[in-house]
Structure formats: C-alpha cells, structure tokens
C-alpha cells in the first residue's frame, strides 16, 4: 500500500472513532462536517479523474480545491474559536478570517474565470494565509491552555490533540504548497510524500482527540480553594 493510499484511508479512522465515541463537545461536532467533506471531496476528485470528467471540465478541479480550502478553513477556524478563551484573540481571529475569505473568494473567482489548470496554478495565497493563521492561533490556544488553572496535564485534553494535528499538518505542508508551482516534477513527488505523512499524522491525532474523555479528568484536582493569600 502506498503512502497516498494510506493517507486516503486514514481519514476513515477519525470518522469511525467519531461515530463510535459520539463526542459531546460542540467544537468537535463541527469536525464531523470537515471529515465528511474531506471524504466527499477526495472521492469526488478521484471519480472525476477516473471518469475523465476533469479532461472535459478542467476548471472543476480548481473549483473543488478552492472550495475545499474555504470549507476546511471555516471548520478549523470555528473549532479554534471555541478553544480560545481570550476575547481579544477571538476578535482577532474573526478579523483575519474576514481577510482570508476575501482572499479565498477572489482566488475562487480567478479560478473560475482564468484558463489555467489546477496543476499549473495552485491556491498558494489562500493556503499560505490559512496556514499562517492556523499556526499562529494554535500557538495562542496552546499558550492559553497552559495558563488555565483548571487544566491538568495538557495532553489529557481533546483540544491538545486537535491543535497538534492542525499544527503538524500545516507546518509539514506550508512550504510545499507555497512553492508548488515552482517545483520540479521529481521534487513534487518527494514532497507529496511529506504531504501524505502530514495527513496521516493529522488523522491519527484527530482520532486520539476523539478518544479523549468528554470532560477533563484532572479538572477537579485544581478546583480553586481558599488560601490565606487570596
């Protein structure tokens, strides 16, 4: 089994765990949309490719990829927004999200109207923008989790594993997508493998997140107690 196939099948792992564990957190439920859409998008692209529809409708791939970037951004940004506690950071995330949507919609419009194919033209700007936004806000969310007095060991929370998955995925593929159009064919082959590994890791981390208990088990231990210094 190739890395590509493994990464394609790895998406079913968090999906199955999601269906089995039925997490109650609102933020995780949005993930179901993301996971389902990833499966649908991947399968649709493979079907159009095998049925030679992409040859007759070359813009379809561009549109599907651009739409995927937008929906992926929406789901991950929504989840991150529920993780972040600081109102200022939340507001900041909303502002940068507006900026991202403007960039992504312009990019989608250009994709629809221009004659370039997806292989020649990649969604560099929206992907790079979303990667920078997610990496920055993941660090902020981790920093906040670290400071929160009720949190026990950070790796006992589902948030940590989701953030870890998002960070590894975007850190691993950031430069690859940024230089995709400038890369030689053999280099692309190599870096697609890094992309597949990132996707596999991301799906494993998301699966661990769904396996985490609904409530933080350490929460009770650090309940605030009165101390003379208070």
């Amino acid at each position, binding site marked *: 089994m190739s890395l590509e196939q493994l990464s394609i099948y790895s998406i079913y792992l968090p999906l199955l765990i999601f269906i089995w564990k039925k997490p109650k957190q609102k933020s995780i439920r949005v993930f179901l949309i993301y996971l389902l859409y990833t499966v649908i998008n991947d399968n649709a692209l493979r079907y159009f490719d095998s049925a030679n529809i992409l040859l007759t409708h070359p813009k379809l791939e561009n549109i599907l990829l651009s739409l995927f970037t937008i929906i992926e951004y929406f789901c991950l940004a929504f989840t991150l927004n529920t993780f972040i506690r600081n109102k200022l950071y939340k507001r900041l995330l909303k502002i940068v999200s507006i900026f991202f949507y403007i960039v992504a919609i312009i990019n989608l419009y250009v994709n629809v109207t221009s004659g370039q194919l997806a292989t020649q033209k990649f969604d560099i700007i929206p992907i790079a923008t979303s990667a920078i936004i997610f990496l920055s806000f993941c660090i902020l969310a*981790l920093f906040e989790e*670290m400071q929160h007095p009720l949190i026990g060991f950070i790796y006992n929370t589902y948030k940590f594993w989701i953030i870890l998955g998002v960070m590894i995925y975007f*850190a691993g593929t950031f*430069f690859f997508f940024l230089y995709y159009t400038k*890369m030689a064919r053999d280099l692309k082959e190599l870096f697609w493998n890094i992309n597949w590994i990132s996707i596999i890791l991301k799906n494993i981390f998301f699966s661990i997140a769904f396996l985490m208990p609904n409530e933080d088990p350490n929460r009770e231990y*650090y309940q605030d107690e*009165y101390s*003379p210094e208070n």
Partner: protein
Amino acid sequence: MLLLQANTQDTNVSFLLYFGTIGMLVLTIGLIVFIIFHQRKVIRYQMTLQKMENEQQKLLLNASIRLQEEERARIAADLHDDAGPLLATARLYLNENMVNLDKNTQLQSIYSAKQIIDDTIQLIRNISHSLMPPTLKNFGLESAVNDSFQKLSGSGNINASSRFHDYKERLAPENELIVYRVIQELVNNILKHSNASFIHLTQNSNGPKFYIRMHHDGKGMTQADFDRLAKSASGLGLKNIQSRLKVVQGKIFFEKDQSQTYYKVTIELNRELAA
C-alpha cells in the same frame, strides 16, 4: 545559459523546501515538547504547594482541636474544683439532721447555704461570661473591647486603651466573637511574653476593609516570627488566631512601627464578608 538558470532556481527552491519544511516541523514539535515539559513542571510545583497547604491545614486543625480540648478541660476543672465543692458544702448545711436542730441554728445553716449557692451562681456566671461575654453579645465588639481594656487597665499592671473610629455598623455576631477572641489572644500574648507597659488598640475602616491595630512597647513579633511559629508544632495560640481569622477570611500582620519603638499588629477583614 537558460538551462543553468533553471537548474540554479530548482536548487534554491529545493533548498528552501527542505530546510523550510524541516525547520517548521522541528519548531512545531519543539514547541509542543517544551509546552508539555513546562506544564509538567508547573503541575509538579502546584502539587507541592497543595501538599504544603494541606499540611498547614492539618496543623491548624490539630491546633484548633487541642484548643477546644484545653477549653473543655478548663471548664471541667472550674466546675469540678470550684462549683463541685461549693455545692457539696451547701448540701452539708441542708442535710436531714437540720430538722432536729434548734431554730437559730437552722436559720444559720440556711443563710450559709444561701451564701454558698450565691457564690456558686456567681462562679457559673463567670464561667459563662468567659465563654460568651454578655457585653459583646448585647452591645457589640466596641463595648466588649473597651470593657475588657478598662478592666485590664484597672489591674494597674499595664496601661490599656482602645478607640473605635468607625464602628457604626456591627459585624455579624459570630464574627464579632471571632475578632474578640483574636484580640484576647493577642492581649494574652502581650501580657505573657512582651513585658509591655502599654497597649493601645484602634479600629479604622477604609472602604470595604476593616482594620484593628494594636500597638505596644514591649518585645513583640515580626511577620517572619509569626509565619515561622505558626508553621511549627508549637505556637498553639498563634495557630488558633490563624484558624479563627481563616473563618472570616481575615489577615493578620505583625510589624515593628516606623519609629522602631513600638510593635504593631494589624487585623484586616473584609466588611462585606464579615458583616
């Protein structure tokens, strides 16, 4: 030439890609490892603090139990040693043989028994007052402290004075009793250990904060002494002060006056919590 330029560009891109991707992954993993280790360290520190806090609580609880037992023993001793013999004597005066005695002797016996019963009543009243001073119950902390300081001054051993500047609204009765007991304990300590010639108590308020300050010219304590003694196995009275103040979420500070002549003890309460 064009081919060479293309090759150079490819090398630059691949160099950037390799180092960029590896750098990003190393940074991400490094950051996460740092966060995990840092958090483990913080949690270990919090657990140590929690353990220390629990030990301190245990000490305070033991001190409060010991104090309760001592108080009970004192009341038991007062009743047994003072009220017991008095009542036994009264019983002797009022025995069955009294009917065989002449009228004058009978009257004498009844009078003596009455005297003894009066003494017993006074004794029990004193015990009861030491448990809950009636002045405190009826007229509040200000009157109780003034009364107690007047008595102290009247003994002639020490000059004691008190002044309440802002005590229009009384604290809750149970909290007044706590503050009164803390003041009593502090006065006892001053009398026992400091060899002071005067004690001056003042009460002030600042917004929601309620302050009681005591000055004396004897050998006093600093905050460091208090912290050390409150944590040690000895210093029962100080632990008792600490545990009483914890109930009203109050604070106590021991310091030397700015003039370095007097010692100052400040009790700080939050009126909203203590009222």
